[in-house]
C-alpha cells in the first residue's frame, strides 16, 4: 500500500492547469504548421492558421492563455488500487488546485449554474473522472475543454445494422453540421460502443491521446483514417473560410456494447488542443 496525500494531488492539478492553458500540445502545433503549409497562399485559410501559430508564440512568450476559453477543467484520474489516499477528500483537492490556478494565472472562470446562469466565480467544480486501475500510481490528465467545440458534439444510438459505414457517417455528419462554429480545424474524439454514458466518456478520453497516434486495432484505425479523409474533403476549412484542412485528426476508442445497439459519440475539440499529464 502506497500513501499519497491529497495535497500532492491539489498541487499537481495546479501545475497541470497552468501548463495546459498556456500552450498547445507539441503534436497539435506540428499539425497546424503542416496544415498552414498546405493551404493556398493569400487564402483566408492560410492567414488564419498563420495567425494561430503567431498566437501560440505570443502565449508562450508572454505566459498568456492560448485561448481565452480556458475551459471546463476536465480531469481524468487513474488511481492505482494499491494507493491509499490520505488527507482531505480527493474531489475537494482537485477543485482547490483548479481554483488556485485559475485565480493565480488570470484564467477565465467559465462555469455557471445551468438554469440561473450564475457563475461559480472560481471555475469549479472540475469534471473529475476517476478510474481504479492496477498498481500503486496515480495518473492525472488535465484537459481544459472549450465549449465552442463542446457544443457541436453529438451522440448517436445507431442500430447494429449501420455497422462501420454508419460510424464513419456519424463522425463526418457531426463535423459537417458543426460547420464553421467550433473553430475548425477540429479534432474528433470518438467513442464507439459501451452504453450511452460510457460511449460519451470514451469520446472525451480519446481526445487525451496524442494527435497523430492510431488506435492499436487495425479495424478501428482504418475508421480513423477514412473519417479524417472524408472530413477534409468537406471543404469547410480553417475557421470555415474554405480549404483543405477541416480536421487535424480523428481519435477513436472502443468498448464492448449490447447486442441491440451501436452507440457512437463524437466529441469535438477545436484546434486549440491543450492537454497535460503527470504520473504521481
Amino acid at each position, binding site marked *: 500500500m502506497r500513501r499519497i496525500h491529497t495535497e500532492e494531488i491539489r498541487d499537481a492539478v495546479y501545475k497541470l492547469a497552468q501548463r495546459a492553458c498556456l500552450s498547445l500540445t507539441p503534436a497539435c502545433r506540428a499539425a497546424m504548421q503542416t496544415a498552414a503549409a498546405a493551404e493556398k497562399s493569400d487564402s483566408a485559410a492560410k492567414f488564419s492558421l498563420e495567425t494561430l501559430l*503567431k498566437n501560440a508564440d505570443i502565449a508562450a512568450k*508572454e505566459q*498568456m492563455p492560448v485561448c481565452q*476559453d*480556458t475551459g471546463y477543467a476536465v480531469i481524468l484520474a487513474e488511481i492505482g488500487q494499491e494507493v491509499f489516499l490520505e488527507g482531505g477528500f480527493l474531489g475537494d483537492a482537485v477543485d482547490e488546485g483548479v481554483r488556485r490556478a485559475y485565480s493565480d494565472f488570470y*484564467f477565465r472562470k467559465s462555469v455557471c449554474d445551468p438554469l440561473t446562469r450564475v457563475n461559480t466565480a472560481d471555475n469549479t467544480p472540475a469534471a473529475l473522472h476517476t478510474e481504479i486501475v492496477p498498481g500503486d500510481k496515480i495518473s492525472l490528465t488535465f484537459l481544459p475543454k472549450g465549449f465552442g467545440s463542446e457544443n457541436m458534439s453529438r451522440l448517436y444510438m445507431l442500430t447494429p445494422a449501420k455497422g462501420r459505414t454508419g460510424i464513419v457517417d456519424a463522425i463526418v455528419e457531426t463535423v459537417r453540421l458543426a460547420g464553421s462554429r*467550433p473553430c475548425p480545424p477540429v479534432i474528433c474524439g470518438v467513442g464507439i460502443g459501451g452504453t450511452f454514458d460510457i460511449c460519451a466518456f470514451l469520446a472525451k478520453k480519446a481526445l487525451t491521446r496524442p494527435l497523430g497516434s492510431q488506435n492499436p486495432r487495425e479495424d478501428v484505425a482504418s475508421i480513423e483514417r477514412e473519417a479524417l479523409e472524408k472530413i477534409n474533403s468537406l471543404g469547410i476549412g480553417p475557421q470555415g473560410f474554405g480549404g483543405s484542412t477541416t480536421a487535424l485528426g480523428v481519435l477513436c476508442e472502443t468498448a464492448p456494447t449490447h447486442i441491440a445497439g451501436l452507440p457512437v459519440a463524437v466529441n469535438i475539440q477545436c484546434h486549440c488542443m491543450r492537454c497535460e499529464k503527470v504520473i504521481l
Partner: protein
Amino acid sequence: MKKVKLPLSEETIQSLRAGESVLLSGTVLTGRDCAHKRICEMLDSGTPLPFDYKGQTIYYAGPCPAPRGKACGSCGPTTSARMDSFAPRLLATGLKGMIGKGERSEEVCKSIVKNKAVYFAAIGGAGALYGNAIKKSELIAFPDLLSEGVYKFEIEDFPCIVAIDCHGGNIYSH
C-alpha cells in the same frame, strides 16, 4: 492590409467586401449570451440601457482577467451563432458592426444587408494575440456577469476578415 476605423462610417461599411482582411482600430463593446439576453429584456420592458450601441460594433467575447501591466487578458472571439436570435433586433435599432467567429443564420445575413451593417470574423483561438491588441478596457455594464459583462475596448490593428458585407457577400457560402 486595409486599415478600418471604428465606429464605422457609412462609407467604410459600403467599401468592405467579404473575404478581404482588415486591421480594425477604435472602440468596440463586448457582449455575449447573457448580456444580449439582458439587453433584449431591457428593450422589452422599456428600461433605459446603461450604454448606447447605436453606430457601434459589438465584439462577441469574454476576456480572461488582465494580468498586471496589461489592459486585458486573452480575448479571442466566441461563436457568433449563439447571438443569432438577438442580432437582428440590435441591427434594426442601430448596431452597425459585429465581430465574432463562424457562420450566421439566414435571418442575420438578411438583416446585415437591410440595415447596411457588416460582420467581421476574428480568428477563433487567437486569444493572446487579440488580448495584446486591446489597449484600454473598461467594464461599462452588468458587472455581475463577470467575463460576460459589457466591456468597452480601445483596440489597435486588430486582424479580421470581412465575413458578411452589406452587399450580401458571405465568406461562408463557398
